[in-house]
C-alpha cells in the first residue's frame, strides 16, 4: 500500500478556555488565523492530510456536530492504515500525518459507521501495542478523552529500582542542585519513554549509568574534576529538558503536555526526534564500533617506512594505504557504545558535546534540503570522533616529558620510528608551519623547545581541530565529492546569521577539506582544481534567490582578490590534510558506515518515491537521507524523510 499526503499543511489547534471552562479543538489552514485568536491556553501543531482519506478542505474545520478524533503513534502511518480495510473505511473520514509522537490523526463522524471504524482501528492499535488517544468532540468541544498508553504506570518496571535515581549523599555542594535536577529529569524521561520504541529507554539507561559514574566519581575528587562534572551536568540537564519536552510532549494525556517548540506545542516533535536519534545512533554505532582512537594507538606497533619528515611529507602512496582499516585490534575491550542524547535547539543549532548533540528546529521543517538538512549532524559527530583521536596524539598539557619528546622530534633530534610517530609528526609540524605562516617568520629547528611546543598547541589547537574535523567529515560523509560538500556546507553557513567576520576562516577550512581528494596531484594542480571547484559553487550560491545573506559572494571575492595569501595559508595546513587522509581515514570503515544491504539498482539504489509513504524498509538512514537531499524547501518532503528514517529502518539490520 502507498499513501500520499498533500503539500499544504493545516494546523490542529487546541484552546483551553477559562470561561466557560472547556477545551476546544479545530483545524485552521493558516497560522496567521491561529495567531489572531491566540490565548494563554492555545496550543498548535501542523498536520498534512492524507489524500486517500477524503482531503479536508482547506477552510476552517470547527468539528461541528459529533466527531471522533483518534491520535495514534508513534507508528508508521502506512502500517496502521494498511490494516484498515478499505471496505470498513467510512466514506467521510479524514486522516493526517504529523511530526509528533502521535503522528497519525484520524477523524470519524460519530455515527454508527464512524464509531465502528474507530473501534477497528483501536483494536489494531491494541493488538500491535501502539499507544492511542481517542477524543469525543461535539461542536468543537472535547467531551470525553480515552487514553491508552503502551505501558501503564503499574506495568512500568523501568523505575523499579527507584533508589538509583535518588540524589546521592556526600556530593560537593556545588553539584547538589545540578545532580538533583538531573535525577528528576532522568526519572521523568524514563517514565515517559515506555510509550516509545525500547531503544529510547535503553539509551537513557546507558546515559544515566555514565552520568551516575561521573557523579559518584566526583566525591572527594579534586576541584578540576568537580568543575568538569558540574559542566557535564549543566549540559546534560539542558539537553534532557529539551529532549523530554520535544519527544514526550504530545503523548497521553495530550491536553496536559506542551512542547517548548511553539509551532509544535500541541503534539510535540516525537517523530522528528526519533528520526534524529535513529540517524545519529546509526553513525555512532558504526564509527563507535570501528574504534578509531584505538586503531590510531595501534599504529605504534607498525614500523614506519619513513625516517625523516621530508620523506614523509613528500611521499604520496601512504594516502592509499588504508593502514587504519588493516589494523586488527587484539583484545577488543568490551566497548558498549555510549549513545548521544539528541534534541532540537534554536539557540544552539548544530552543536555537540561529549554526550549530547543538537540540531536546529529548522531541520524538522527542511530535513532534506541542502541548506538546513539533518545530515549536518555529521560535522558535529566528526568533532566527537576527532576529539577522541586527538586525545591520544596530543600530549597532556602538564606532561612535560611528552612535550619534550615532541620538541625533540620536531627539532630533528629524534627520528620517526612507528606509524604513530608519523601521525604525531604531521600534526606537530603543522603547528610550526602555521605559526611560521602567521608570523611570516621562519622557526629554526634549534629554536624548538618544550615551551614553544606548549605555546603553539594552546594558540592553534582550536583552529587545527577545525581543519581536521572538516577534512574528516568530507572524507567519511561526503565520500570525496567536492561539489556536494561545498554546496552543502556553504549553503548551511549562508543561512546562519552573524558569521560574516569568519568568511576567511571558512574559505580556508573548505579548501583544506576538499584538497584531501587532490593529494595525488602536484601542488599546482591541486590549487587550481580545488580553487576552481570552490569558485564555481560560490558563484552558483551567489545567484541563489533563496539565500538571503551575501556570504557566498563575499567569499568568492575574497578568494579571487587574495589568492596568493590564501594559497600560503592553505599550504601551511596541508600536513593536517595528509594526517587525516593517511591516518584517520579508512576506505574499509567508510564502506561499513555507508553499507546498506537493502539497496538496489537505479540512480540512488532506493525505490522509494519522494512524498509517497510505503512499507519498503531501509537499512542505512545516513545513506538514504543523502540520496534524497534536494534544493527545494518543502515541509511535506521533510516530513516524508523523517517518517521513513523514524519508522522504516529494519530493526534486524540496525541491530547488526
Amino acid at each position, binding site marked *: *500500500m502507498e499513501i500520499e499526503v498533500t503539500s499544504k499543511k493545516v494546523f490542529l489547534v487546541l484552546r483551553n478556555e477559562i470561561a466557560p471552562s472547556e477545551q476546544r479543538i479545530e483545524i485552521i489552514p493558516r497560522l496567521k488565523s491561529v495567531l489572531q485568536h491566540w490565548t494563554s491556553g492555545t496550543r498548535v501543531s501542523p498536520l498534512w492530510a492524507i489524500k486517500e482519506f477524503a482531503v479536508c478542505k482547506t477552510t476552517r474545520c470547527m468539528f461541528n456536530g459529533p466527531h471522533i478524533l483518534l491520535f495514534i503513534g508513534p507508528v508508521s502511518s502506512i502500517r496502521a492504515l*494498511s*490494516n*484498515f*480495510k*478499505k*471496505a470498513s473505511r467510512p466514506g467521510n473520514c479524514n486522516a493526517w500525518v504529523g511530526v509528533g509522537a502521535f503522528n497519525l490523526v484520524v477523524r470519524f463522524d460519530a455515527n454508527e459507521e464512524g464509531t465502528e471504524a474507530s473501534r477497528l482501528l483501536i483494536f489494531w492499535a491494541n493488538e500491535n501495542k501502539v499507544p492511542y488517544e481517542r477524543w469525543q468532540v461535539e461542536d468543537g468541544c472535547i467531551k470525553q478523552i480515552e487514553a491508552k498508553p503502551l505501558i501503564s504506570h503499574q506495568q512500568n518496571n523501568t523505575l523499579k529500582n527507584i533508589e538509583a535515581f535518588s540524589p546521592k549523599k556526600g556530593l560537593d555542594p556545588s553539584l547538589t542542585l545540578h545532580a538533583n535536577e538531573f535525577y528528576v529529569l532522568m526519572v521523568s524521561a524514563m517514565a515517559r519513554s515506555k510509550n516509545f520504541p525500547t531503544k529510547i529507554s535503553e539509551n537513557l539507561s546507558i546515559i544515566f549509568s555514565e552520568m551516575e559514574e561521573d557523579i559518584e566519581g566526583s566525591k572527594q575528587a579534586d576541584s578540576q574534576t568537580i568543575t568538569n562534572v558540574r559542566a557535564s551536568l549543566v549540559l546534560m540537564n539542558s539537553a534532557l529538558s529539551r529532549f523530554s519536552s520535544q519527544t514526550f510532549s504530545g503523548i497521553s494525556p495530550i491536553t496536559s503536555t506542551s512542547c517548548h517548540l511553539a509551532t509544535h506545542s500541541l503534539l510535540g516533535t516525537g517523530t522528528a526526534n526519533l528520526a534524529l536519534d535513529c540517524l545519529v545512533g546509526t553513525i555512532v554505532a558504526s564509527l563507535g564500533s570501528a574504534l578509531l582512537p584505538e586503531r590510531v594507538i595501534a599504529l605504534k606497533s607498525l614500523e614506519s617506512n619513513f625516517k625523516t619528515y621530508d620523506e614523509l611529507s613528500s611521499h604520496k602512496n601512504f594516502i592509499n594505504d588504508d593502514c587504519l582499516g588493516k589494523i586488527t585490534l587484539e583484545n577488543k575491550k568490551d566497548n558498549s557504545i555510549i549513545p548521544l542524547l539528541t534534541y532540537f535547539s534554536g539557540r544552539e543549532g548544530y552543536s555537540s558535546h561529549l554526550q549530547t548533540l543538537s540540531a536546529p528546529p529548522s531541520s524538522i521543517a527542511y530535513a532534506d534540503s541542502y541548506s538546513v538538512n539533518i545530515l549536518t549532524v555529521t560535522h558535529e559527530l566528526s568533532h566527537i570522533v576527532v576529539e577522541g583521536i586527538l586525545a591520544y596524539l596530543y600530549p597532556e598539557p602538564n606532561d612535560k616529558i611528552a612535550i619534550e619528546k615532541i620538541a625533540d622530534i620536531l627539532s630533528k633530534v629524534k627520528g620517526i620510528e612507528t606509524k604513530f610517530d608519523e601521525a604525531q609528526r604531521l600534526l606537530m609540524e603543522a603547528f610550526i608551519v602555521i605559526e611560521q605562516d602567521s608570523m611570516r617568520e621562519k622557526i629554526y629547528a634549534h629554536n624548538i623547545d618544550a615551551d614553544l611546543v606548549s605555546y603553539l598547541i594552546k594558540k592553534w589547537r582550536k583552529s587545527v581541530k577545525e581543519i581536521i574535523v572538516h577534512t574528516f567529515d568530507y572524507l567519511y560523509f561526503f*565520500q*570525496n*565529492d567536492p561539489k556536494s560538500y561545498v554546496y552543502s556546507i556553504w549553503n548551511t553557513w549562508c543561512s546562519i546569521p552573524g558569521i560574516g567576520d569568519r568568511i576567511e576562516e571558512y574559505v580556508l577550512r573548505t579548501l583544506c577539506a576538499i584538497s584531501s581528494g587532490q593529494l595525488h596531484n602536484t601542488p599546482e594542480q591541486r590549487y587550481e582544481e580545488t580553487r576552481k571547484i570552490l569558485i564555481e559553487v560560490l558563484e552558483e550560491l551567489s545567484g541563489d534567490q533563496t539565500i538571503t545573506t551575501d556570504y557566498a559572494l563575499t567569499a568568492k571575492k575574497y578568494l579571487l582578490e587574495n589568492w596568493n595569501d590564501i594559497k600560503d595559508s592553505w599550504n601551511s595546513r596541508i600536513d593536517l590534510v595528509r594526517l587525516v587522509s593517511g591516518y584517520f581515514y579508512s*576506505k*574499509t570503515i*567508510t*564502506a*561499513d558506515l*555507508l*553499507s*546498506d*544491504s*537493502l*539497496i*538496489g*539498482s537505479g540512480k540512488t*539504489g532506493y*525505490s522509494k518515491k519522494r512524498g509517497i509513504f510505503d*512499507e*519498503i*524498509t531501509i537499512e542505512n538512514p545516513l*545513506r538514504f537521507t543523502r540520496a534524497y537531499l534536494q534544493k527545494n524547501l518543502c515541509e511535506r518532503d521533510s516530513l516524508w524523510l523523517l517518517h521513513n528514517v523514524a519508522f522504516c529502518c*529494519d*530493526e*534486524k*539490520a540496525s541491530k547488526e
Partner: protein
Amino acid sequence: MTAFTGYLLVADESIGDITVELLEKGWYCSNKSESLLKYSGSFQDLSLWETYIFSSKYFFTEDKTPELLGPPYHYRVVCARSGRKLIVLTELRKITDHLISRLDETITPNLRKVHFCIDDLITGFSNSNSKYQTTSLRGRIKDDTRNLRTISLYGTNVIDSPVFREHHNLFNFYSCGLGYSGFPEMPYGEEREIVRLGTDGVIYLRSFEKWRVCEFQKIIKQVIRDRYVESWVPLYSGGDR
C-alpha cells in the same frame, strides 16, 4: 523456454492462508464484482504450481497482434501458494507489477512483498557445504563515489573468485543468481543459474524445467529458514507446504 519474473508475497495474519478464492475474488471492487484472476489448473503438472489468467485493460507485451484485438488482454500468471505465502510470476515484470497493484486494490491488508537480504544470502550460501553456487552478482559500491558505482560479476562460482574475495566488502550486492553445483556437465554461467533474487524482492526464473523448479523451491525455503529476508517475514505460517 520462457523466463518468469515475480515476487514472493506474504499475507497479513488477519487474512490467513492464501486461497484460490482470495486470488480470484479478493474483495468486491467498489460497486461491481470483478474477477481479478481466473484459476486455470495446475502448471506443467508441477505440484504446488498453478496457472491463472489475469485480465487487464492494459497491453504489456511486445507482440502487437493482440493489441489490435482490443482489451481485455489476458496474461498467464503462475503461482505457488503455501500458507500465507504466495509466489506470483509472469512472463514480464511489468505485468507482475501491474497485477500486484490490482491485488492491492482488492485485498486489504495488502499482500506484502518480501525483500531478500542479498549480502547475508551470499555469506550464507558461500558455506562450502552448500550445494548452490553463486552464478551472478550485481552490486553497488558502498561509499557511492562518482568514479565507480556498480559492479556485475558472472561465472560458475563467483564468490570463489579473487576479484570477489578481495573487494566484496566494498560493495552491497543487490542481485544474486544461484546455480546448482551438482551439474558439472552444464556450461558455466547463465544456463546453470536456477534463480536470481534481488533486494527489491524480484525473483527471476530462467525457465520452468522440473529440476530447476524443484531446486528453486528448496532455495526459497532455505532463504526464509536462514532469515535472508526482512525481520517481519514469518518463519512458518499456517498451512505451509
